[in-house]
């Protein structure tokens, strides 16, 4: 088990793991409900999957909703997993590594993909299911920039650590 230097990092770690588990569970449950409901309507009673748009359950709408949900799931994993790994490496006493610089770049790329998808997806989705894509706004751009700046800070940190490691 990873040992954490402070309660804050332990709390962060628990929060990240909880968030990942929560989002994964919600999305997988929705996917399951959507699939069962489309195969045998009414089997689960009056189920409404979180969006009025899905009241019109044509195969196209259901397929689009499934695709978007799985996309969101993979994006959440792609963004949160590196974050969890970074926290673990920090707990292990090695935060300033090139691996963590790469992870930050990866997170920035993931946010960028999510940001672009909000423009790319709605035009190609069936009209009734466009509502499931929630626009991100400027905070997405800010998040990308923040992550990229952090990556540069970490890169400098790697250089400083190498310097300190060579000092006896």
């Amino acid at each position: 088990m990873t040992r954490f230097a402070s309660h804050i990092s332990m709390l962060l770690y628990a929060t990240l793991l909880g968030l990942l588990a929560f989002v994964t569970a919600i999305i997988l449950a929705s996917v399951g409900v959507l699939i069962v409901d489309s195969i045998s309507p009414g089997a689960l009673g009056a189920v409404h999957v979180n969006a009025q748009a899905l009241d019109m359950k044509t195969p196209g709408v259901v397929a689009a909703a499934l695709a978007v949900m799985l996309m969101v799931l993979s994006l959440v994993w792609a963004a949160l997993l590196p974050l969890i790994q970074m926290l673990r490496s920090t707990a292990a006493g090695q935060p300033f590594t090139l691996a963590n610089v790469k992870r930050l770049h990866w997170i920035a790329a993931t946010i960028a993909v999510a940001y672009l998808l909000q423009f790319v997806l709605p035009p190609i989705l069936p009209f009734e299911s466009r509502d499931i894509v929630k626009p991100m706004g400027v905070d997405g751009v800010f998040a990308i920039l923040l992550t990229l700046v952090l990556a540069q800070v970490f890169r400098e940190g790697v250089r400083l650590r190498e310097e300190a490691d060579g000092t006896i």
Partner: protein
Amino acid sequence: MAIRINLDRLLLDRRMSLTELAERVDLTLANLSILKTGKARAIRFTTLDAICTVLECQPGDILEHVAEPAPDA
């Protein structure tokens, strides 16, 4: 590098092992070996102070500057 570490000669003169020096200056043997073989990038004044105290010597006895041959010579 143009700085040579003469730690092995000092230790030989005093008949002290690297392990004993490591214990008395409170460094790990691994770090002291790095220093002795000249692979260290820098040395702290506190480390230098501790080594000089234990070996009863001056920094100049440990560190020596050697002129490097010109690159195109």
